[in-house]
Structures are given as C-alpha cells and as structure tokens.
C-alpha cells in the first residue's frame, strides 16, 4: 500500500492498529454458569469432606497453666515477684497419642504484631554484623542501650523472649520417666541457615565477639550462653530464639517448643498419666494474657483446623443450591430472546 507513495499517511493495516486482534470472547450465560457452579460445588464438597475428616483425626491436648484460678497448681507462681518458681500440671492420656507429637506453648492477648514491637530489632546484628553490635539501630529503642552499653540482641522482640521451660514426665509404675523434647529443627531452615548468623568467634572465643555489649534487660543469660552445650544451637542460632523471633501474626498464638520423637516415643505418647513440670518465669497476668501448652499431631494439611473443612463444605453446598436455583429461574424465565435489541 505504502509503496504507491500517494497514501503516505495511510495508517498501517494490522490487526493491532485496526483493533481486530483475534480474541476469545467468553460470555456469561446460564449455560456456562450453572454447570460451573455445580462443578465447583461438588469439588468443594469433596475437598471439604476430606479436610473435615482429616482434621477430625488430629489429636490436640491443651493445658492452660497461667494460674489465675487459686485452684490452679501454678497459682503460686503467677505472682510478679516470685523468681524461679516451678509448678506441675498432671494430665492423662486414655489412648495412644499418635506421633510425631509436637509440643507448643501458647500465649494469648499478646500483641507480637504490634507495629513498634515488630520493628524493634536490628537485622544487621542478627545477621552477625558486628559493627552493629556496638551501635545498634535506633529501631531497637528503648532496648538499644542498657547502662550505656549496647544491647545484643537489641530490641523488644529479643528482650521479651519467652523463657518458661518445660519437662514432661510419664508416670510409669509410680516413678517419673522423662519424655525427651527434641528442641532442634523447630525453626525454619531459612532462618537457621540464612537469615540469622552468629558473629565469627574472636580469638577462638565466641563470647569475645560480644565484648562491649550487654544482654537484653529481661534476659538472665547472654546470647552466647543460650546453649553452651551445643555451639550450633547457641547465640542467634538458638532454635528457641529463632522461633520467638518469628513473630506471630495474631494476638493469640502458639509456638513450637519441641518435638517428641525420640526413642520409645517415635510412635507417639502412649496412654498413661503424665506430669508437665513448668519452670514458670514469664509474666502474663499483668496484661491479661494466658499461657498454655499444646500437644498436637499433624496431617498433610497441617494441624487441627476445622474451619477450612467446614468453609469448603458450606460454600460447596451453597454453590450447588445456587446452581439449582438458577436452573429453576432459567427454566422459568428464559433469556429474553426478542429482537428488540
């Protein structure tokens, strides 16, 4: 066309410029929507049933040990001034708690998702950058310096680390047999291997890397003493620390404390009476929080969660109902097929 020269300004004849691009033009019609609804409905019901049954099969054992009630064994520990208090909670399992069993502690009314709390950490410090050991970032304020010494790890999150410890005993013939918690591998692989890094030891001493700094105000031990027995679990790489630092999205949350997988318990917790010995350190009563521990096992879809199953079932049923309603409507009032368009 253009070669003729006369029509220099003639626009190009392409599907794009002429808005004639080939296109799929779907149209919403009863013929599509009703089968679609039926299909989705049935699929949802199917998934819902599967989810619901799976969720039903998951066992959960919860024990509240806040100690608000006077009858509670932990009542005497809940006072603010009491240090190094230990209390015990007994419970019994009537049947085998199938393994692997996971042991969680749970806190409620605890706003780990509070914005200022969430930013109160120094990512440089936590990634092992020692220049920030002596000069923590200002986000950490007011847990930036203590007695003019920089806090490592600084900030509110680290400072408020959960410090109750638990021991579980199975009562066998009147004597207590400790059920071991496996505290390793409870943090995310990426947290342990990438996100958090310990500072390199100075002169062969790990602790020396922390020279000139001080521990968080609420901590009893310094970061480099979190697990002196296992250097791989010490410092910022301590698994409990990592779990704590992964802050929760909602004010009621659980965090993994340990897995019960070892030796005799690889099949789970056998039926019997148990005693949970709690070293009660963490104060929650002041802000109306509660503490609990949870034993649970998991399935392919995670822990016990009735919601998903029920939601799928309800929505699936709704879809089917809607499909039927629409079918009736469609049969009664056909699409106005008149020619007045």
């Amino acid at each position, binding site marked *: 066309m253009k070669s003729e020269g006369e029509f220099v300004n003639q*626009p190009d004849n392409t599907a794009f*410029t002429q808005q004639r691009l080939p296109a799929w033009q779907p149209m919403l019609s009863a013929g599509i929507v009703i089968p679609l609804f039926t299909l989705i409905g049935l699929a949802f019901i199917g998934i819902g049933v599967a989810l619901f049954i799976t969720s039903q099969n998951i066992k959960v054992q919860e024990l509240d040990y806040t100690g608000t009630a006077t009858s509670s064994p932990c009542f005497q520990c809940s006072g603010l001034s009491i240090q190094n208090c230990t209390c015990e909670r007994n419970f019994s399992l009537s049947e085998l708690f199938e393994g692997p069993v996971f042991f969680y502690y749970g806190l409620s009314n605890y706003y780990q998702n509070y914005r200022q709390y969430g930013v*109160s950490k120094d*990512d440089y410090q936590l990634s092992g950058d020692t220049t920030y050991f002596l000069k923590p970032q200002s986000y950490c304020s007011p847990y930036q310096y203590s007695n003019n010494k920089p806090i490592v790890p600084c900030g509110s999150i680290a400072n408020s680390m959960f410090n109750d410890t638990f021991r579980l005993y199975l009562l066998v013939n009147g004597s207590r047999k400790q059920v071991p918690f496996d505290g390793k591998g409870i943090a995310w692989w990426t947290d342990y291997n990438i996100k958090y890094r310990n500072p390199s030891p100075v002169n062969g001493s790990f602790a020396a890397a922390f020279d000139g700094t001080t521990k968080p105000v609420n901590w009893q031990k310094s970061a480099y003493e979190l697990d002196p027995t296992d250097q791989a679990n010490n410092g910022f790489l301590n698994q409990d620390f990592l779990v704590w630092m992964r802050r929760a999205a*909602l*004010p009621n949350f659980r965090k993994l404390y340990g897995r019960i997988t070892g030796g005799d318990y690889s099949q789970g917790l056998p039926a019997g009476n148990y005693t949970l010995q709690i070293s009660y350190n963490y104060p929650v009563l002041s802000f109306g929080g509660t503490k609990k521990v949870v034993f649970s096992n998991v399935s392919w879809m995670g822990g016990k969660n009735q*919601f998903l199953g029920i939601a799928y079932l309800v929505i699936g049923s709704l879809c089917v109902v809607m499909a039927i309603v629409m079918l009736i409507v469609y049969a009664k*009032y056909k699409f106005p097929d008149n020619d007045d368009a």
Partner: protein
Amino acid sequence: MSFFGLDCVKKKEEETERRIRANDREYNLSFRYATNAIKTSKYNLLTFLPLNLFEQFQRIANAYFLCLLVLQVIPVISSLSWFTTVVPLALVLTVTAVKDAIDDIHRHKSDRKVNNRKAQVLINGELRSEKWMNVQVGDIIRLENNQFVTADLLLLSSSEPLNLVYIETAELDGETNLKVKQALTVTGEMGGSIEALAAFKGEVCCEAPNNRLDRFTGTLVWKEQKYPLDNQSVLLRGCTLRNTEWCFGMVLFAGPDTKLMQNCGKTSFKRTSIDRLMNVLVLFIFGFLVLMCIILAVGHGIWEYYEGSKVTGFVPREESRGPALSAFLMFWSYIIILNTVVPISLYVSMEVIRLGNSYYINWDRLMYYNRSDTPAEARTTTLNEELGQIRYIFSDKTGTLTQNIMTFNKCSINGKSYGDVIDHYSGQRLEISEDMFPVDFSFNPLADSKFQFYDSSLLEAVKLETEEVHNFFRLLALCHTVMAEEKNNDLVYQAQSPDEGALVTAARNFGFVFRSRTPESLTIVEMGVQRSYELLAILDFNNVRKRMSVIVRSPEGTLSLYCKGADTIIYQRLHESCSKLMEVTTEHLNEFAGEGLRTLVLAYKDLDEDYFSEWLQRHHEASTALEGREDKLNELYEEIEKDLLLIGASAVEDKLQDGVSQTIEQLAKADIKIWVLTGDKQETAENIGYSCNLLREEMTDVFIVAAHSTEDVRRELRNARAKMRPNAGEDAFFIPESILGNDPKVVQDETVNGEFGLVINGHSLAYALESSMELEFLRTACMCKTVMCCRVTPLQKAQVVELVKKYKQAVTLAIGDGANDVSMIKAAHIGVGISGQEGMQAVLSSDFSFAQFRFLQRLLLVHGRWSYLRMCKFLRYFFYKNFTFTFVHFWYAFFCGFSAQTVYDQSFIALYNLVYTSLPVLGMALFDQDVNDGWSLEFPQLYVPGQLSLYFSKTAFMKCALHSCYSSLVLFFIPYATVYDSMRSDGKEGADYQSFALLTQTCLTFTVCLQLSLDLSYWTAVNHLFVWGSLGMYFIVTFTMQSDGLYQLHPPSFFFVGTSRNTLDQFSVWLTVFLTAVLCVLPVLVHRLIFIQFKPTINDKVRFKVHQKKDQRPSPQRRTKIRRSSTRRSGYAFSHTQGYGDLVTSKRFLRRSAAPRSTGFTPKGRSPGFKPTGRSAGYSPSSKAQNNKQEVEPTELQQYRTVQDSTF
C-alpha cells in the same frame, strides 16, 4: 531573562498609551517596549527541573503524595518505608517531565523558526535583512507580496494605487477573502522612496497593547500636523500580504504585544465529565480515608488505655506518650498506610489509556480519507471517553455536511427536462454512478475538464442550435458577477458563490464561454465565435429581490434584459404567454427540489431602445439621489423586470459529503441530537436539512422562527411549544420553579408526540439567546427532533453550545471546518474539525479532526463507545482492586492493637499497583471490546448507556466500594481463620506474621486477577500475556525479593527472606487461596447472571445476539439511497451577501476613496466580541495549512484590479 520578563509585566500594567517615533530606536528603547521576539516555551535548561517540578506538584495528586512522603520520613509515625511512595511518585514525575520536556523542545523549535524569519528593516537609511526577533518598535519594515506581516504595523505606503494593500487574515479570524487596508495619504506620498522613509520622523501616540482585533485608535504627528489613525491603516501580525507588490510599515506593537499574541494562550483546558466526577470522588475518598483513620486512631487510643499500658515490658512505649498523643500519631500512620485508596497510578494509567485510545483513532484506516490522504487525528489525547457520552452534536453546514461544491446537475429548458440518464431499452431513469461515461466536451477547447454531465441530449440540443437552449446558456454566461482570469492558458473563474460558479461553468462547457469582463462589457465565446456584449446595467441581487438581472446590448445591437432568480419571484413577473410553459417548468422544479437541488428560474426580455434610455436616465437620477436612494432604485428595478419570458430552470446540487444522511440516521438512532448551526441563509439550510434527512416530509411540523422582536420570538416559540404539547396547557408557558430556583439548573427533557423540527434564523436567535428568553428557546428546541439555526454568527454558535451546556447536563460535540466554527468548537465539550479546503483554523483548535463528516459515526459509535466502556471498566476495576487491597489493613487493625501494622510485605505494597496489577487492567482498558466495530455500528443503541453515564457514576462507585468491602472481609477473615492456631504440615507453627502476610497477599493477587478475568470480555493474546504474566511476575518478584542473595545485600529491606519458600509449599495455603478467590467471585457471578436474566441491558442483548449468530462481523450494510418525492421547492443560487455587481461595474468605486473602508477589518455579520484565538496562532505560519496556502489564489479583489486597469 525572567527578571526582565517580570519587569516587562510590571511596565505593561502601567502602560496606558504608547509613544513611538519612527526611525528613532534610542527614543523608543527608552520605553522598553517588548521586542519582536516571541517566547512560547516555558523552560530553559536551567529552569526546567525546578519549574517543572513546581508545576507538577501543583497537581493535587502529586502534592498529596509529596505530603505522604513527608509524613513517611517522620520516624514516629512512619508506618511504611519511604520507598513505597517514592518509587511510584518518581516514576510518575519522570514520565510527565519527559513529556513536558519534549513539548517544550517543540515550542523552542517553533519559536526559533518564527524568530529567525527574515524581514527587511530600514536602518540608517538602508534596507537590511534582519531576523524577526531583532525588529523593534518604531522600525520601518518593507513587506513583499505573500510575506507574513512581521509585527503590528502602521501602514505607511504601498505599491498599489491609493496606498491600498490587500491582506489575508485567515490566521487571525479565519476568513479567506482578502481585506483592504489603506495608508494615510500623507505617508502614502513617500511611496517607495527609501530616502523619504528614512527621513520620516512621525510620532505615533496610540493605545496600549490589547487583544481587540477590530479596533485601533491613535494619532500620528508629522510635520506638526495631527492625523487620526484607526484600524484601517494597521496591519496585524499573523496576516499575509496578498496581491500587493510591496508596502512599508512602521512597527507599533512587537512580539508579545501584538494583537495576535495577546489573543493567544487563552486556550481553555478541557476536562471530561469522568474527570470531574473523579475529582468529586477523590474528595469523597479522601473524606472516607480520614474517617477510617479517625476510627482507627480512636480505636488505638482505647486500646492503649486498656491494654497497651499493661504490656510495657514487651511493647516498647514512650512513657511520656499518653493514649491521646499516641492516637493522634497513629492517625497519621494510618493515613500513610491507607493512602492507597487514592492511588497515584490511577492518574497515570488514565493518561496512558487515553493516549492509547487516541492512537487507535489515528490508526483507524476506516477514518482515513484517501483522496486527500488525511488520517483521522486525535489532537487532544485526554478526552476520549467523553466521545462515548455525546448527547448533542452541533454541526456546521458548509464544508461539514456539504462538500461546498456545487454542480450543475439538471435543467429544464422550454419545458424539457435535461440531466437524467434514461436507459434506452427500459425507458427508466438510471442512477448516476462513477462508471458511467460523462458527456464528451472535446468539441469545445475552452471546456472545463472537471465538469461532468451525463445527459448527452442537452449537448445535442446545443449542437442543433435550438434557440431556447442557446438562450438559456447565453443567459448563464451573461447574468452573473463572476470574474474570469486567464492563468497558464487556462480560464479560471472567481465566483462570489459556488452556485454562480457552477452555472457559469456549465454554460462554458456547453459552448457559451465567459471570457472576460470590463465594467462596461462582457466578452463571451458563443459556439466558438467571440462576441462582446455591452454591459449597460446590473440589477443586483439582494435578500428582498431574490433575483438579479443584467441589461446588455448584443453586438448586433439588440437590447436584452436577462434575469435569474427564485421561482416564486420570477413567476410573478412573467408574461402571460408563458403560463403553459410555467406549468411544465413547475413540475420540473418540484422534481428537482425533491432531489434536494437548488433551483433557479431563468427569464429574459428584449428591451425597447427608447424606453431603456429613458429608464437609464431615471436610474442615474435615482442613484445619485440623496434621500431614499434604495427605495427609488428598487422601484425602478421592479418596473423594468416585468413581462419576462420564461426560458427554463437550472438545478444545482449542493453536494453533500458521502454518507452524511446515513451518518445522521445512525447518530439519531444512538439518541444523539443534531443541531445545525450555519451562517448560511434559511432556505439553503432548510434545503440541506431535507436532503440530509434532518428534516423530513413526514415530520409532524417544522417550526420556522423568523421574527424581529423579543415578543414575536417569544410568541413563536410558545406557539411551537403549545403545538407540540397541546395538553400541557398553561404551565407549558411558565418555567417551573425548580428550574429557576435550583443551582445548578438542569432542564429535563420533555416528551412530545410526533417529530418536530425547528428552524430559527440569526435575528431571532439573538433575541432567543437573551437571558430572559434562553430557557424558552432551550425548552422548545430540546423538544424538537432537529434544530437548525441559520445566519448565525460565530459568537452565537458558541452561545448556543454554551446554553445547552449550561442547562442540560449533557456532553456536547461541535463539528465544523471553518474559522467561523472555532468559537463553537472551543465552547463544546469536544470539538471536531473537518480538515477540508477551508483552511486549518478549525482543525487547529479542535480536539479531533478528520476529513469527512461520515467518520463521525465511527468516532462516536465505535471509538467513543469503546473508550468510554474501557475507561469505566478500568475505573471500576481499579477502585475495586485498590479498595480491596486497602480495606484489609482496616480489618487487621482490630487484631494488632491499631498499631498501623501493614498486612502485607512492604515491597508488595510498593509493587502492587505498579507491577502486579497494572498491566492486566491496562490491557483491559486498551483492548476490551464488548462487541466489535461492525456490530457497534449495526446497533447504535449501544451508545445510549454512555449518554446516561451508566457505566461509571457515583452509584457505580458505591457498588464498587461495597464489593471491595465484601472482598476485603473475605480476604482478611478467611486467612485469619485458617491460620488461627494452625500448624504447618511439618509441625512448625503456621501463624507467624510473615507467612500470614504472604498468604493474604497471594490471596489478594489471585482474587483481583480472577475478578479481572471475569470483567474481561475480549481476551487477546496480549491480555493473556498480561494476566498470566502478572501472576507469574508476582511469584518471580516475590521469590526474588525473599531470596538469600538480596537478603545478604541489605538485611533490613529483605527480612522476609525464605517466607515464600516456606509458606507456598503448604497445601493448606493453596486451599485458602482457592477458597478466598472463589468466595470473592461467586456472588459477582450470581449477581451478573441474575441481572442478565431478569434485566438484560442493551449491551447484554446485543452480545447475546452476536454470540448466537456466531458471526464475527455483521452482514455488510445495505446502502439504500434515499429517494424522496417532495413538494418542497427551494434554494436558489446566490451568495449570502449583497452581490458585488456594484464593484464590477463601477469605475466610481475606485475614485470614492471612502468605499474600501466598509471592507475593513470588521467582519460582516460577526460580533465584535468574537476573538479568534487559534491554539497555535503564534506559529501557524509554520503549520501545514499555511504552507499549502503559499501559492496565491487570485481573489475577487485581484480580479477587480485587472478590471480597473483596463479602464484607466
């Protein structure tokens, strides 16, 4: 530079009069008048950045984001890092700055081009070539033919007799005819003498610079004599010198002070109704944002009071900060977080969409006119969607509906009709088409090759020397005011009206060639024989007489009077003997009129020598009488023009442009009202109205308002209304209180039975547009199907448009081709220029331009409709996606202590609008079509929802907001419920903040994508790419942002490291995503289906139909030629104004020095308030149009000059 400029402005304010001394630069410099350099550019290299940024931040949206940015860097309230705002803002600013820079570079270029033009300036007694920018006030300049006038000049002398110059003012007021300017005699005496001019030391004292083109006052003091100066001796910048060898002028106003420049820069900024709605909505959204933030701040205060104070150990709190202060700070933090309800990318995307849709208009081959090689052009790229909402079209007639080409089509001579082609076999009339052979005029060497006639019997009749036929053409060759010029051995006619030109050309081709005229004679070549007729008198045309006659003496000495005129008039003056012929001719006339042709009846009579000399004597007395000259002359004319002998009738076709009536029909189906506003006279307008189907025989009534007083007009309008609504009774006369009282006033449409038309002329319109009458007029006019206003001035055109704009909340479009349409094009919401022959003035001030009226239907019904549809879909979806995105934060606030914690990762917030969701919606807004263009034209009714603003309105917006509210609830609470106390399949807890954020944002991304897919009705490959690409992009970017490498680069920014890897491998996460997406979309599906079922819109119906037919394109339109049989008779071939027979015959004319003044700068029939202000008036000399105009066409006045020469 700017300082100097400021200085000038200050000075100008003070300047009340201007004193200039010719040839005295020093004296003139002391006043610091502006030089002739013009500057339309805004920036230079240094000032660009600060000025441009300053301008950009004046836009409310940009300022808003700047404020946000400031808030974000305040640590105590910064809830989001600064980059979430900086990234989009920087992008927006850069894009705009680049655009502005390019525009300004163009302006610089054109400034430079204009400023560097050369002018001949008289300096120190010699002529030097100087750049325009160096010309100063007081300089004397020599201009040559066809040069642009350099600055506003006082004409000193010229090469022409009587110191006249001819100028073309097309650039200023768009009129293409020449105007005369005359220098004062005292300066004219200097002629071309350089010495005299160099010695000229006249002092001018005149008014300060202003923008009135038609007025100038000043005095010239020279040799201690005072001479008054007026507009007559002033040449304005922007004009072009024509037909004048040279002239000298003295610069009065230069550069920015010239009247042309003073008229520039007042371009009003047009906004679309969606823009205006958006402004309201943005304010509303802003209020809503503040409300949300107040709620959350109060919530925070309460939370702090009851809860926060107790968790001091964990949550870091400044002790000194009480709940109230904390709440106050939180208010601002939430303003930052929730700011996404007013998204900055919305504005950018809107611009991109409009630009894209403008390009489609430029690219459309079906709006390309190959004969003039003109594509359609969207000159304004910000008004597209308004094209889909037009309710009123105001159209010019000449050049817009018609081609402004007259062709001699048929005639009736002595009771025989010629012009139809009859099939020899069937005896049937044949349709004249392109492939027919026109009559061969090769016997006539002087024939015009462009003339085409198809009926060979007429030529045979001529060749057979039939007396009547010869007489017919002789009359056509003699009775006119056309002037002929030989140009390159070609005969060129200059006709005052195209009708006359057509008739004389017809005579020329049939062997009666008009060769030349002098004031006293006419030379024609009759069948190859040259004959000279003595021209004794021209009884000229005027509106009352509606006829013109010439009295000539043939070479043989017979005295004859030839007359042509409107049938009604001529019929009264025929001799009784013609009654038989009259009947037959009347029949033919009816036939011609029925085809929409403009007819003239021709008659003649031979005069008695004695009677005539006596008559001539009386005529001479009458024409020199001092009192009642007009009446006396008219009486004389009446006396001699009687007992005429009928020759026949001619029929001239005012050629409509192709497809005009189909287009009008289509637009009418789309419920668009078309008003024709023409400067033409009533008969012509009516005629065109009928021929293009605007007025129809079947109409119940066509009201004609042609009154001469306010009361009469009012009465006629009321009568019309009473006829249209006979039952309405009294209240029809009174305007309801609601119209008078409320503000803004909106006149509702009133329903009438039947179809009516209204024709109103300029006089009546002037009364009708008075403020006391305008509502009467508007109500009446709006009840009619068609409105035609004739003989309207450009100002009135604009006033009519403004009237409709004011009282009808409707979008208006004005279409025209000439300079007289500029005002209405600018006044209307959308101006369309026809790039025709009449110059580019209309196009330059238009928003869209193309070559043919018929393209209007495609512009509106296809492009406009799509643009509107796309923009509305875009806005609805955009608000939906952003509200949904933002509201989730609101719900989360109740679970995080109202601490302004964001739900999503910050990088997601920064990229959501830019990367993850922008392209799919842009793709929708650029490619979506409900039905293709063919079907759009097949069903013009599809246009109606746009006029009613159904697709995007406040209601639609509220629906969007509610829909988002629902979606955000789903998007927050479904993930909330699934992660609550949940564990991952490996036993680790699943409810950590980062996983939750990732889960929610993934749900959101999927939901908005699904919603878009549901809205998208036209899935091109690009849309697929955008939708799936964006989803893919989301994952790619998310994984990248959370990758090990980036984290190690800068830990604080990428602390989400590993979240996606750890979260997206969970089955329950995907189940949640699936659940939320489906749950968000299901109600929409149900709602839509039910509405399609029960209340299908026109759109649904058409789509359904198209879907059923499975046809991609509608069957090609059957073009039915509209044939009407009409009893209407109309149209006669005369120009609008009094003829210039006077000029043609008079030697007196020249000697009467006062005479040319009447053709001065005051345009006839134009209100003095009309100020043509071309958008680019500053540089139009460099524009396309002007270049085409470089070769000068001979004009009437040049013709006149040749005539005049021969008499001397």
